[in-house]
């Protein structure tokens, strides 16, 4: 929005770039959702690159001197060679790189693909899909000698900091406006220590409106699936036996899902003291049960239908294991 006359201003104004990788565009929406706050921020900065909303080109970025961009906010996981190049370019041009949103921070939903083999992904989509007619078994072709080639698809979906050096993190799927605004202002005023997550370092229960309804000594016999139970809109989900990841997920979203009467799924990721989000959640959930003999334990645990998908919903790229590989030696 440099074309805005109000923003013809001295060079000193910090330059901001926004870019997206393997993402859904929700993070872009989140920025747009800043509403008036966006305008406030726009008074403080120049946006020099923002494909979704403005006519600035990759070539423009390439022309910029290295380090000339003050802050680049990058959302989305890194999935293809093309994205990799783009973020490397932005790293060169930027003083500060911020991983924006769950995908950039931890891989996000797309990182669930790390539970599968790349070729399986392609097979399902192009050969096995019931609505696809593909008798010649054509697959997108990265060689492309007869046709233009499609870009290279990585085996592993990566968080931003697994590809380039990343300075800060803004969590959330997507990051709520309050967090975004606060984060951007913090970065402009007094940048915290490198590597900081620009959100409170404490779990969601702390700001959950339902926490008072949770008894001190909650022990569960089983877990229930939310769609099979009438949900009390006032009561703590775990108290109702419904898995809620809020216990092990960073706060900052103001418990939006809870207010929508659905449990937390963990998009803000873990707090600082946690190495592996899923492992920690797993530990907590196993602890909430009380069974002792093997059979009872199996029965109780079977009420968690998809532990991996539930505990690592957004965090697979940053899990210690990161990616499914077939067992045994490579």
């Amino acid at each position: 929005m440099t074309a805005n006359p109000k923003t013809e201003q001295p060079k000193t104004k910090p330059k901001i770039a926004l870019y997206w990788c393997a993402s859904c565009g929700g993070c872009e929406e989140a920025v747009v959702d800043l509403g008036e706050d966006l305008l406030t921020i726009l008074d403080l900065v120049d946006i020099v690159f923002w494909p979704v909303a403005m006519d600035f080109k990759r070539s423009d970025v390439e022309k910029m001197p290295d380090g000339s961009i003050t802050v680049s906010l990058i959302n989305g996981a890194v999935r293809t060679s093309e994205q990799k190049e783009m973020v490397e370019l932005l790293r060169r041009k930027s003083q500060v790189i911020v991983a924006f949103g769950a995908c950039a921070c931890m891989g996000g939903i797309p990182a669930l693909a790390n539970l599968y083999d790349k070729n399986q992904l392609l097979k399902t989509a192009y050969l096995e899909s019931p609505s696809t007619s593909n008798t010649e078994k054509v697959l997108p072709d990265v060689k492309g000698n007869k046709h233009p080639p499609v870009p290279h698809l990585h085996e592993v979906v990566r968080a931003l900091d697994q590809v380039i050096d990343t300075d800060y993190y803004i969590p959330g799927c997507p990051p709520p406006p309050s967090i975004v605004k606060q984060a951007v202002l913090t970065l402009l005023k007094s940048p915290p220590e490198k590597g900081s997550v620009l959100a409170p370092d404490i779990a969601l229960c702390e700001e959950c409106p339902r926490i008072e309804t949770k008894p001190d000594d909650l022990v569960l016999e089983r877990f229930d699936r939310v769609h099979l139970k009438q949900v009390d809109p006032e009561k703590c989900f775990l108290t109702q036996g419904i898995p809620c990841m809020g216990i092990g997920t960073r706060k900052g979203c103001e418990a939006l899902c809870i207010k929508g009467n659905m449990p937390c799924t963990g998009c803000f990721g873990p707090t600082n003291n946690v190495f592996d989000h899923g492992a920690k959640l797993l530990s907590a959930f196993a602890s909430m049960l009380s069974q002792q003999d093997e059979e009872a334990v199996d029965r109780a645990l079977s009420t968690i239908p998809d532990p991996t998908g539930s505990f690592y919903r957004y965090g697979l790229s940053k899990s210690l294991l990161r990616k499914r590989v077939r067992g045994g030696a490579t």
Partner: protein
Amino acid sequence: MTNAKDFEPKIVAFFCSWCTYIAADTAGVGRKKYPPNIRVVKLMCSGQLDPQYVIAALANGADGVLIGGCHPGTCHYSKGNYKALRMYKLLKRVLGDFGIEEGRIRLEWISASETNKLVKVVTDFVGQLKELGPLNWLGKLSFFDSELKEATA
């Protein structure tokens, strides 16, 4: 499995200080022999075992993880071993989704006096892991990371 013979599995063991750890200690005092493949991390109680440790061990290059706790009903802290059991069973399912074989993680109840059981368990766990071959998680990840160096198609 490939190179089963010439491969020495690396096992990270998490032992409860009240039972299995003492068993290992006593086995030593009794000069009992078992394969040197295990490296023991002493915990107060198997209930203290954080799945992060298990995963970290595998991710950092262990071929298997052995957890030793007190027999049901004998936990020094009354219920820690049951918690360990629940965690272990849930964790196994998750590791399975990552392609890590069932047989690479094992929970055994070994009381302080069961030095022979300890020896037996360690011995055949090592055998089992030789069958499965190296896990080499780091190797696999760095193999994947090589794609970061490839040029764009």
